[in-house]
C-alpha cells in the first residue's frame, strides 16, 4: 500500500517536472527538439548519413574539375553548368540503383519517423498536399535521372527535417507521390528514392 502511494507520488512529481520543462520551453519561445533515437536506430542513421556523404564526396570531386559558377552568373552559364554537371555525375554513377542510400533498414526507420511526425489531421493535410495539390506527376522514379525542372519541388515540412537523418548541404529530401527522393540541388539528379514513404 505504502509502496503504491510512493510510486504515485513519484509519478506525480515527475509529471509536474515534465510539464514545467515543456511550459518553460514554450515561454522562452524555443524551437521544439526532435525525439531521441534508440542505439540501434542511431546506427541505421549513421550508416544512411555515411552513404549520403559518399555520394556527396564523389560529386564534389567532379564539380571541382568544372569551371566554377560565379555568384553573378548569366542564365546561359547556369544552364550549361547544370547540364555538364549532370552528364559527369550520370557517367560516374552509371551502375547506381535504388537502395544505394535508402537501405531497407533506413527506409523502414524513415517510414516510422514520417508516420510519427504526421498524425490525424496533419497526416490528412500532408497526403492532400503531396497527392492532390502538387505538380510532380511528371517526375520519373529513376535513380540517376534528372528531376524535371518544370516540376514543383514540394516544401519539406521543417519539423520532419529536424527528425530525419541529416543530409549533406547539396542533397535534399523531396516527396513525390508516395515516395521520398533524395535530389542533388545543383545538378537536379535523383540520387535515390524509397517507396511507400507517405503515411
Amino acid at each position: 500500500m505504502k509502496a503504491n502511494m510512493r510510486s504515485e507520488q513519484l509519478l506525480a512529481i515527475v509529471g509536474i517536472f515534465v510539464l514545467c520543462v515543456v511550459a518553460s520551453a514554450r515561454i522562452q519561445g524555443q524551437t521544439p527538439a526532435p525525439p531521441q533515437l534508440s542505439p540501434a536506430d542511431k546506427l541505421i542513421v549513421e550508416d544512411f548519413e555515411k552513404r549520403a556523404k559518399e555520394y556527396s564526396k564523389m560529386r564534389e570531386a567532379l564539380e571541382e574539375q568544372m569551371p566554377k559558377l560565379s555568384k553573378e552568373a548569366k542564365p546561359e552559364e547556369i544552364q550549361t553548368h547544370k547540364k555538364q554537371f549532370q552528364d559527369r555525375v550520370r557517367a560516374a554513377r552509371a551502375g547506381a540503383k535504388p537502395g544505394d542510400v535508402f537501405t531497407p533498414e533506413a527506409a523502414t526507420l524513415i517510414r516510422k519517423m514520417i508516420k510519427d511526425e504526421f498524425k490525424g489531421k496533419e497526416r490528412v493535410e500532408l497526403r492532400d498536399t503531396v497527392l492532390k495539390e502538387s505538380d510532380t506527376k511528371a517526375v520519373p522514379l529513376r535513380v540517376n535521372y534528372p528531376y524535371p525542372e518544370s516540376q514543383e519541388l514540394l516544401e519539406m515540412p521543417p519539423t520532419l527535417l529536424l527528425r530525419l537523418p541529416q543530409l549533406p548541404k547539396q542533397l535534399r529530401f523531396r516527396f513525390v507521390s508516395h515516395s521520398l527522393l533524395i535530389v542533388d540541388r545543383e545538378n537536379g539528379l535523383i540520387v535515390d528514392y524509397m517507396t511507400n514513404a507517405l503515411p
Partner: protein
Amino acid sequence: MKRVISSLILVILLALTGVNAQNNGARTNPKARSNPPFTLTLPNKESGVRFLVIGDTGTGTEKQQELAQVMLRVRQMFPFEFALMLGDNMYGSEKAADYKKKFEDIYRPLLDQKVKFYASLGNHDESNQRFYEFFNMDGQEYYRFSKGNVSFYSLNSNYMDKKQVEWLNDKMAADTATWKVAFFHHPPYSSGAAHGSDTKLRQIIEPIFIKYGVNVVFAGHEHFYERIKPQKGIYYFISGSGGKLRKGDVKEGSSLTAKAFDKDMSFMLVEVDDNQMHFQVVSRTGETVDSGILMHQRKNGKSTS
C-alpha cells in the same frame, strides 16, 4: 475647462496620426481607397529605406507585365531602391530563355534604373537561381543584408533544415539593427482556402522570431494580398499576386485577416523611417488597396511602444 481642452487635444492628435479603432496594430489611411488613380500615401523621405515587395511573379504573362508597368510608374513618384522577391520567381521550365521571359524582359526598365532585386526561393524555384546575377543571393539559399537601420533575412522556407535554423539563430543573436525583417515564400499565417497557414514552418521559426525580436515578415505562396492581425507581436504580410491571382481565395470572416485583397494582382511599397514602417499596397489598375503605418514594436524581444 481643463478636461475639455485635454479632450480636444486628444481628438486632434488622433485625427493627425490616423489611429483607427479596428486597425489591429496598423494605422490605416482612410484616403487610400478613394483615390484611384495612384496617389502616394508614403512619406517618401530621402532618409527612409524605400523598397518594393513582390511575390509569385515568374509567369512571363501579359498581366505580370502590366503590374510591372504600374511599378515603373509608381517609381517616378516613389524611387524605391530595391525589391524583395518572395519566391516562385520562375514557374515551369528554367532554361536561359525563361530567365529572360519571366524576369528580365518584364523588369528590364527597373533593372536599367539600377533597382536591385533580392530573391528568396519558392516551391517552383531551382536552387541554382541563387547564382543568378540579378537575384543578388550571393550564391546562398538564405542570406542576410542590411539597409540603413533595417536587417533583411531572406530564408528558404522550402527547405528549412537544421543548418538553416542554426544559421538563423546565430545571425539574429548577433544582430543589433533596429528593424528585423524576414522574407520567404511560405506564410506562417494565412487565410487562403487553397493553402492556409504553414503551421509546421511556424512551429520552427516563430520561436526564433520572437526570441530575437523580428518585427515584420513578408511571405508569398498564396496568390493574393493579406495583412494579418499582429501575431505574438509580429506583423505578417502576404504579397503573392505579382504574377498569378487566385481570385476570391481569402476565406471570408477569417479571424487572422486585418485586410485582404484577392480581386486583382498587387504589390507592396514599403518605407522605413526611424521607428515607423509605412506601407502601401497597389493593384494592377494602380488603385491603392491598403496602406498604413506600423510602429516599431520591440527590441531584442522587448516592447518599445
